[in-house]
């Protein structure tokens, strides 16, 4: 039981990040390596606001808003001029954006991790029905659940959400129906920024520090999760994230000590196995044709 709760905690964060990647990929075919930098941006925004004396709640909301804005600016400045370019060019662009922001943080702020003071209630541990649940973990689980339900509602019940699902399938036809390509893409980026911001806060909550490279590892994991789940498929991203997180936590707990350092190797072997048998991922995306 304890294991399941922990697994869902980590898996949930991966799922949020993987969703952010998948939302953008499903629409414009871009694997956004700068997604991790959105996390970093959110982290430093949180730190800056806390240092400026803002209340914790304001800083949290502010950090997410900054991540959304950063994602929108990224789209407008870096990716819109590359619209319709090949997958490789888009990939390289996102690497460039990623490195640029990374270096900016390293030189502009500091290469060393900066501590972030978390309020006491976030670090407490509670005992619920015989399970010990850190409040950080509980918040993490709660946030992931709410985010997933809200995202589902958005994609099913609002015109913008339905248009995004349609865009993933056939962007050209959507434009023929008069729905603005720019607006759909901007919405996708805003959504990915929101998810990166949330993911970043949950990540920080468990580490209590920010550093210029903080986004790299989780987003790399999220990328693996999207591939396992089926690149560009939103349900796939969630499943991939949870599966990956669960596997990591389980291995961490079950592997004998002398094997524990090789945990990631075991996880990646598992990924290879899945892809051998299901090269399209667990829940592949349906795509008719795409041309933005």
């Amino acid at each position, binding site marked *: 039981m304890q294991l399941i709760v922990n697994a869902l905690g980590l898996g949930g964060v991966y799922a949020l990040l993987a969703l952010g990647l998948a939302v953008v990929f499903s629409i414009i075919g871009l694997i956004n390596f700068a997604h991790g930098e959105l996390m970093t941006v959110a982290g430093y925004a949180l730190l800056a606001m806390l240092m400026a004396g803002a209340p914790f709640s304001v800083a949290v909301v502010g950090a997410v808003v900054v991540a959304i804005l950063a994602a929108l600016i990224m789209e407008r400045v870096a990716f819109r001029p590359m619209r319709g370019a090949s997958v490789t060019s888009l990939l390289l662009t996102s690497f460039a954006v990623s490195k640029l922001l990374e270096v900016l943080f390293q030189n502009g702020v500091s290469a060393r991790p900066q501590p972030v003071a978390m309020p006491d209630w976030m670090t407490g541990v509670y005992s619920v029905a015989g399970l010990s649940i850190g409040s950080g973990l509980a918040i993490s689980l709660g946030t992931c659940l709410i985010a997933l339900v809200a995202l589902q509602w958005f994609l099913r019940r609002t*015109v913008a959400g*339905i*248009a995004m*699902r349609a865009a993933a*399938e056939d962007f050209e036809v959507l434009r*023929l*129906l008069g729905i*603005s390509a720019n607006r759909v893409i901007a919405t996708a980026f805003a959504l990915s920024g929101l998810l990166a911001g949330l993911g970043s806060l949950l990540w920080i909550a468990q580490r209590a520090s920010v550093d210029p490279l903080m986004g790299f590892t989780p987003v790399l994991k999220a990328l693996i999760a999207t591939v396992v789940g089926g690149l560009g498929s939103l349900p796939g991203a969630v499943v991939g994230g949870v599966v990956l997180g669960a596997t990591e936590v389980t291995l961490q707990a079950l592997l004998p000590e002398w094997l524990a350092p090789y945990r990631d190797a075991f996880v990646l072997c598992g990924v290879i196995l899945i892809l051998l048998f299901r090269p399209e991922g667990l829940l592949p995306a349906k795509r*008719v044709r795409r041309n933005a």
Partner: protein
Amino acid sequence: MTDLLSVRNLKVRYGEIEVLHGIDLYIPENEIVALVGANGAGKSTLLAAVCGLVPCAAGHIDYAGREVTDWRPERRSRCGIALTPEGRRVFTNLTVGENLLLGGAVHLRDGLRERQDELLGLFPILRRRFSEKAGNLSGGEQQMLAIARSLMSKPKLLLLDEPSLGLSPQMIDTVFDLIASLKQQGLTILLVEQNVALALEIAASATVLVNGSVAVTGPANELASSALVRQAYLGA
């Protein structure tokens, strides 16, 4: 009678290769014009150029008295140009209702529900399958949905690309009856159709494309009896 759409000396290139070499096409208001020709003659490319999906290398497209040559597809759609694409291309992951909703989402702020009811009256089969995923519909039903989706926006000009493709003879009759009744309601239609005999029956005039150029254009009944067309397309 004025032309709703006029295409003058239109050239389209895919990379280095020119696929349309100076097309002229005029579509009078409230008429059906048929566009026929062999596979690869450039019919679908011409439709794509009219609705803005492919850029024009040269020439002009005027619609409702305004030059739209450089407009984006979204803007053309908002001004009343709608395309029912070849192969239907409904959003298979979305329900029938969601497909229809997107068809009129930016055009009708308030009248969405009324328009939807109107079209569901016209296509009773879609009402029955309203909450089902479009991917589960049969080919004919998907064609109905694709046409209904383009009509949601109350367009003035409807571009229909191969509406009979893959349909049963019975379904083809239904679709062509519908096209005739749409004209009665004041719509202007450009019809691309493999079934040339059927197209010439319903259209007022027709244009034949051969290798990216207009080979012949004229009243449909004259073309139907011309030796060239009969030989090439009517198998007589």
